[in-house]
């Protein structure tokens, strides 16, 4: 090198590069400040983000479901576990009637308050009625003071609503939510202790309650069978083997909605309600999917060597592209539980279960790395079911779900192991064995 020794030349470059400075974009600090002011993400979120492409469908679905469940504050609850059109109508009427009671009671309460303010002492609020309606009897001033909550105002039989006689079919959950159940009985008792008709009515109410309880109990233990079918999108967690001399340098990823991720499943089995909101299920399951997994590998055992003694030698491993035909025909059994979270137009249920499947498809071809036959998969299932009654015996449902393999015993003569998982939506029918 003319006029400049080699080292000095590189040192000058080093100095100039080392001291090189450049202004970043103006909004850089805003982005950094925004990031550092946020709380650190939990590991699970970071993990989900890294696998966003494969989990976004299921996450979006479950976020929607959770939102639905969380918003279930005002929904009325059907008295029976299994939908019964007749009972539904009665209970809807009941709810409507009670809402009317509640509204009217609130109205009366407002009038009571106004009356208290104007009259001071008052032994009865019966005279604050509106043209003879909404008559409320109170035994004394203390009763009025105790009932400051509009939802806890008691009504006597003199109310025009009373002849409807809905006492015996009051939905305990609904009334519990609105603070009516506990107050209504004692209030009625307090008002008309001396009324002989009241005793008769109490007997009628008790009989109806018993019948209703028996009916509910009968409906609770109705066995059901289900059948469902649906498409799904499959994804895989691929773990390269570390015990060989091969490095997988590239893996061809299909798009999230690629056609070769598509598969379908069929399931059929029994369901049985064990508690008003809980039912167990168990059945047979079939799953089918074809996918080609393409990857590039580098083999340490073969390759070329270049370089020289002064600068060192470079070993370039031989590379090649390979493909695994991942053709699955799996059959197995599943079992789990469904929990009814909400009943509003549809019955909304959250389900969790375990699915065991075994492959029975022969090898995709001679020399194929993957043999489905004999491969075993233990998977868990998360499901959300929206169910609607078609008639007394049939119910139709839509069921988004997520299935994830947690233990895989696969006949994969490959350089890696695979854990499949999939998101899908099924359509199914439930048949109720009702008398």
């Amino acid at each position, binding site marked *: 090198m003319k006029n400049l020794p080699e080292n000095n030349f590189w040192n000058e470059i080093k100095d100039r*590069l080392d001291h090189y400075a450049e202004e970043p974009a103006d909004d850089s600090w805003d982005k950094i400040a925004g990031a550092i002011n946020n709380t650190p993400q939990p590991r699970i979120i970071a993990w989900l983000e890294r696998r966003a492409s494969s989990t976004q469908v299921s996450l979006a679905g479950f976020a929607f479901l959770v939102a639905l469940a969380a918003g279930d504050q005002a929904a009325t609850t059907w008295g029976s576990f299994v939908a019964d059109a007749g009972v539904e109508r009665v209970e809807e009427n009941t709810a409507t009637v009670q809402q009317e009671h509640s509204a009217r009671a609130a109205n009366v309460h407002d009038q009571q308050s106004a009356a208290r303010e104007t009259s001071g002492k008052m032994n009865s609020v019966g005279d604050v009625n509106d043209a003879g309606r909404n008559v409320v009897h109170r035994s004394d001033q203390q009763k009025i003071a105790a009932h400051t909550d509009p939802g806890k105002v008691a009504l006597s039989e003199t109310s025009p609503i009373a002849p409807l006689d809905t006492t015996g079919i009051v939905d305990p959950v609904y009334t519990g939510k609105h603070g009516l159940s506990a107050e209504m009985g004692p209030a009625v008792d307090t008002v008309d202790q001396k009324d002989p008709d009241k005793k008769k009515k109490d007997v009628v109410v008790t009989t109806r309650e018993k019948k209703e309880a028996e009916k509910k109990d009968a409906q609770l233990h109705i066995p059901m069978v289900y059948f469902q079918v649906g498409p799904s999108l499959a994804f895989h967690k691929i773990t390269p083997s570390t015990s060989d001399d091969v490095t997988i340098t590239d893996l061809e990823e299909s798009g999230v909605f690629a056609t070769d991720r598509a598969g379908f499943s069929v399931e059929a089995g029994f369901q049985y309600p064990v508690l008003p909101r809980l039912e167990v299920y168990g059945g047979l399951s079939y799953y089918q999917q074809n996918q080609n997994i393409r990857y590039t590998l580098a083999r340490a055992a073969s390759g070329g060597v270049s370089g020289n003694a002064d600068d060192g030698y470079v*070993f370039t491993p031989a590379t090649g592209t390979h493909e695994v035909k991942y053709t699955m025909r799996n059959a197995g059994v599943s079992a789990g539980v469904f929990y009814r979270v909400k009943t509003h137009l549809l019955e909304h249920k959250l389900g969790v279960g375990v699915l065991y499947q075994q492959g029975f498809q022969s090898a995709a071809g001679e020399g194929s790395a993957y043999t489905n036959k004999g491969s075993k998969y233990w998977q868990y299932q998360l499901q959300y079911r929206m169910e609607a009654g078609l008639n007394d015996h049939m119910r139709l449902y839509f069921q988004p779900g997520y299935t994830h393999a947690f233990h895989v015993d696969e006949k994969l003569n490959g350089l890696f192991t695979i854990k499949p998982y999939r998101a899908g939506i099924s359509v199914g029918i439930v048949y109720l064995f009702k008398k």
Partner: protein
Amino acid sequence: MIGPELFEQCKRKDGRAQQSLYMLYKARLMGLCRRYAADREEAQDILQEAFIKIFTNIHQVSAAGKLEGWMKSVAVRTAIDHYHKRKRSIVFPETDHTPEVASADYETMLDNLTDEYLVSLVNGLPEGCRLVFNLFVVEGYSHTEIAGLLGITEGTSRSQLHHAKFLLKQRLTTLGVKRYEKLA
């Protein structure tokens, strides 16, 4: 040099102190990131990631005097992580027949080059060469350390450095010839 007060405030995650530290070092670290990145946009991403790591992990630094060196090493490692994270395979070009470039008046050439142009020459190197060149020549890492950082052998690191130097000289020569032609 950062004062101990600013350093302690940054450790306490004081927003104003963090912004002051950023203002002090943004240009230096952006310059570093520019050398590792293929373009300005990528350098911008690396810089932001590096500062986030700096502010998150500043408590690991024991004294204010060590902060500057630590910040630079964080930026360098972030630049390397950037490639690993994106699962981009670092391309190490064939280096079997790297010839020696004939001597030329590099001193004159370097004097005529701006720093920006010099950085653009480094940016123009193949990815693997660029990483090894920056780590060895500018940052002063050994081939053993570079091999560990990039997941390559020491031999690969040496040959990539050799190739990077050859390419830079070649481009400088070409540049010199062009300039001489223009001057003639």
